[in-house]
């Protein structure tokens, strides 16, 4: 039997000490009561209502997207219900000039940053017009390669720093994504360059069917910031005010030249991983689902706003109706997009077509004109 040395004991204490530094930031509890006045963000009544509006709208967008996907009117779709606080309150803390590098589940942030809904639908269907981002909207297409958005974010942030811009690059990944090499390289480069970046980890506890404790023995994901020597913070990702406060503060630090922050949001997706046949009942219990539904960000924020006299059923119905109308209209616009031709795909490969493509372009042009 190995003898217990003093060193061994200290190592166990070291893990505990680290863990203690990453307590969950919460402002609103499940009943919508403020449990942390000190960190309360400075938001006007109108801003609070706007944040609720966006969360309700996005819940409807998720419900309609799932339904449109089942009807075959949308393609790839990664459900977002449950993550409204994490996704929308973080985006709400940004300015227009901030640049978003989303993961594949982060379409709502793009929409609220200025991407027309019809284009989000075209991206889901697989049409190149979907991610022809309008000028002045600072977002990239949703990243499919998990982790790639992290290393790219550092590049965008360093670019902003070199230009002397007072803006940030923000990116999102999931709990599974923290196991990737690019996750670590991204936060480490940003730390080394003191780049104005905000790295968000949306920990919804599952990477498809793999629970977070199979990803790492680390007790929090926020503490992975320590490896990069940057601040890390864990927030209640079902609490819009805590998420807003954390991102707002990280943004302030970044634009003041103090470097990046890693933010872990503890959240949950009520739906499947994607609509491509994933069945969460194979790996999640109904008890766990119920436990997280009690933490619903809409429920607690609704209670909070109702108590302040800022929200009621009538307001919520109006948002729901507006969302449904917008979605109907956006699907119509998407339907009207011209079908893609091979010559279109060739035209967007290079600024000037190389010889092989020029040749193939003529062949396909002839085919298409038949």
């Amino acid at each position, binding site marked *: 039997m190995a003898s217990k040395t003093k060193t061994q004991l200290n190592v166990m204490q070291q893990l505990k000490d680290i863990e203690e530094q990453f307590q969950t930031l919460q402002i609103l509890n499940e009943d919508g009561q403020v449990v942390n006045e000190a960190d309360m963000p400075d938001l006007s009544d109108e801003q609070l209502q706007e944040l609720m509006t966006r969360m309700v709208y996005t819940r409807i967008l998720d419900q309609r997207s799932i339904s449109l996907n089942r009807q075959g009117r949308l393609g790839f779709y990664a459900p977002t219900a449950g993550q409204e606080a994490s996704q929308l309150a973080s985006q709400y803390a940004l300015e227009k000039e901030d*640049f978003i590098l989303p993961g594949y589940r982060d379409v709502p942030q793009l929409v609220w940053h200025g991407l027309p809904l019809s284009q989000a639908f075209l991206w889901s269907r697989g049409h*190149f*017009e*979907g*991610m*022809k*981002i309008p000028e002045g909207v600072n977002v*990239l*297409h949703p990243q499919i*390669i998990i982790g*790639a958005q*992290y*290393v*790219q*974010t*550092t*590049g*965008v*942030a*360093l*670019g*902003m720093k*070199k*230009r002397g811009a007072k803006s940030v*690059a923000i990116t999102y990944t999931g709990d599974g994504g923290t196991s990737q*090499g*690019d996750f670590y*390289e*991204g936060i*480490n*480069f940003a730390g*080394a360059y003191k780049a104005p970046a905000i790295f968000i980890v949306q920990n919804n506890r599952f990477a498809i069917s793999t629970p977070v404790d199979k990803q790492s023995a680390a007790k929090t994901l926020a503490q992975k910031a320590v490896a990069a020597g940057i601040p890390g913070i864990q927030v209640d990702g079902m609490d819009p005010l805590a998420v807003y406060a954390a991102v707002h503060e990280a943004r302030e630090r970044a634009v003041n030249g103090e470097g990046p922050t890693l933010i872990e949001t503890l959240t949950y997706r009520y739906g499947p991983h994607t609509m491509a046949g994933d069945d969460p009942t194979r790996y999640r219990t109904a008890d766990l689902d119920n436990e997280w539904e009690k933490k619903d960000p809409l429920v607690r924020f609704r209670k909070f706003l109702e108590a302040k006299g800022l929200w009621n059923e009538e307001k919520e119905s109006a948002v729901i109706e507006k969302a449904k109308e917008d979605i109907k209209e956006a699907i119509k616009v998407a339907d009207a997009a011209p079908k893609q031709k091979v010559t279109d*795909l060739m*035209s*967007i*490969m*290079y*600024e000037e077509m*190389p*010889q*092989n*493509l020029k040749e193939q372009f003529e062949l396909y042009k002839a085919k298409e004109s038949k």
Partner: protein
Amino acid sequence: MAQMTMIQAITDALRTELRNDPNVLVFGEDVGVNGGVFRATEGLQKEFGEERVFDTPLAESGIGGLAVGLALQGYRPVPEIQFFGFVFEVMDSISGQLARMRYRSGGRYHSPVTIRSPFGGGVHTPDMHADSLEGLMAQQPGLKVVIPSTPYDAKGLLISSIRDNDPVIFLEHMKLYRSFRQEVPEGEYSIPLGKADVKREGTDLSIITYGAMVHESLKAADELAKEGYSVEVIDLRTIAPLDIETIVASVEKTGRAIVVQEAQKQAGIAAQVVAEINDRAILSLEAPVLRVAAPDTVFPFPQAEAVWLPNYKDVIETSKKVLTF
């Protein structure tokens, strides 16, 4: 005009573009104060400052991501991968990301990035330094792949690569860095990408090649001339896209061709050149198009380079097979 080695011509091209365009950024492992492990970026940080020429943490994938992100902010990144054998660490940033940016965004974004990287055998480097992996890059839509063989070509092609608004992989053969000097014009000049160069004119056989094999082929052509054969040597200079016009015109003239590469037979781009000739000039061929390439093993342990790497003797042997078919 000045007598320059290829490495000096490369430094000169980088200096020219750093001066011309404030968006050009040079970065990588040890390219700053150290001036690069081969001195390719010697003196550049001193002249242009740490904002323009800077070191990175030791992580190729992170360097690739940095290039993608800086390009999204309007910069013209010229990152370095210290040895091209390390490209596997950054394959996603290159093939999965940079190469696809313009297409994925429907033209909204693009990636004016030039990745410089040394490769090539003959200098007894350790494992994973000298491998010829250009074939992997040439198979990726969205990239251009440039491989110079002379100081003059290196400067003009690097200036063109940096000015190109799409990603270019610029591969520098280590054995050619300082093996000879050549007259290189001062100031800026450019050589179009995708254009081959006839390094020697001939009428009996076309040798199509690139990189260090250009010089082996020229040496072979000298020897063959002594036996009365007139050999044309085409230096591809850009291996993706290929200069089909120059290749086909030469084969139509000579009626015989071989393709010479340093990479293994199953790698490189020789098979692609053979296929293009078969598609376009089969009626001109007096003999099949044969290939000179390395054996299909992992790149040799340093002491085995001499017996493994293709050289001018292999070129002569294969040329004769085709000339006497």
